[in-house]
């Protein structure tokens, strides 16, 4: 008898807990349920779009209450979101770092090209995005400006150079040969910026791409993280080389 009473009590307690639990979640669940269809209307990934959608739709002030809850819940969402998004099948090696970019690219169409900023700036953006979303709709302009500003610091030229020197994926002869070719290319850039016999910038770009391709080919099997880091920094490095002032700063340092 006492057992049945105890079991009955336990059942009642569990039932009460369940009913209590069911009552509290609906507001949040409804909020996410409301936001999810809105997000699916534009893109396929359910969790990632809410923070992405909020900046473009932020201009109408009426959306601010609807955009608020998803952005508040977005911080946990972005990490699982990348795993689901398969927007970039062409880059299997960089998929780990590229996945978080996909929501960013869709969210900021103007800032799509400098997406090569690797995985480092993205957490900063993800931190910045919810913080900017909290103040409400006027902050959308700020988020639009902070996103491109956060990407350039990704380039760590000295770090990449050191990693290239230290890597065991490339042999000594090959490293020396690569260094020769890098020096040759730097000489060509020096001539270009110095106004001497000028190879066109397009030709320099071609040589740069070819050299980078060689480096990536050598690294992709032996040191994939370094390969992806270099690949992500491709445009940033080109920006340094192509810009006269930045190039001279590199030469000085």
């Amino acid at each position, binding site marked *: 008898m006492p057992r049945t009473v105890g079991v009955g009590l336990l059942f009642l307690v569990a039932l009460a807990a369940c009913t209590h639990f069911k009552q509290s979640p609906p507001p949040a669940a409804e909020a996410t349920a409301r936001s999810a269809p809105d997000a699916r209307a534009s893109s396929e990934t359910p969790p990632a779009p809410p923070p992405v959608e909020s900046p473009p739709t932020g201009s109408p002030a009426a959306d601010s209450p609807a955009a608020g809850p998803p952005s508040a819940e977005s911080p946990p969402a972005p990490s699982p979101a990348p795993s689901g998004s398969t927007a970039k099948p062409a880059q299997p090696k960089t998929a780990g770092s590229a996945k978080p970019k996909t929501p960013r690219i869709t969210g900021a169409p103007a800032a799509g090209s400098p997406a090569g900023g690797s995985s480092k700036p993205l957490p900063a953006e993800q931190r910045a995005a919810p913080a900017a979303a909290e103040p409400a709709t006027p902050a959308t302009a700020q988020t639009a400006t902070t996103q491109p500003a956060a990407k350039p610091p990704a380039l760590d030229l000295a770090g990449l150079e050191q990693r290239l020197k230290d890597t065991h994926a*490339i*042999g*000594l*002869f*090959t490293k*020396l*040969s*690569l260094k*020769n*070719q890098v020096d040759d290319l730097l000489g060509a850039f020096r001539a270009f910026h110095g106004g001497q016999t000028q190879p066109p910038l397009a030709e320099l770009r071609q040589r740069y791409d070819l050299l980078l391709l*060689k480096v990536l080919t*050598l690294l992709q099997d032996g040191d994939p993280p370094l390969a992806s880091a270099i690949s992500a920094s491709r445009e940033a490095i080109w920006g340094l080389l192509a810009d006269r002032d930045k190039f001279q700063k590199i030469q000085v340092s």
Partner: protein
Amino acid sequence: MRCPIYVLVFTAAALLAEGPSFGADDTSFSNDLKATIALQGMPCDQIIEAKRNGDSDYTASCKDGNRYHVFVNPKGRVVVQKL
């Protein structure tokens, strides 16, 4: 009679297991030479022999019959000459 056979088998297995570690350096160096030759835009499918002539001076023979002199010149440049 069985004991010596087992001993032989284990010895052979141990020797075989040791084999790749001896060859690993050779393989990595062959790959280094092959990559160096390829970086200069010259064909070499596989290095079958690499003869050391001196410091940073090698003669590489490829499986496809090509032979190269790979060395570092006094200016510090890697040079690959077809032989």
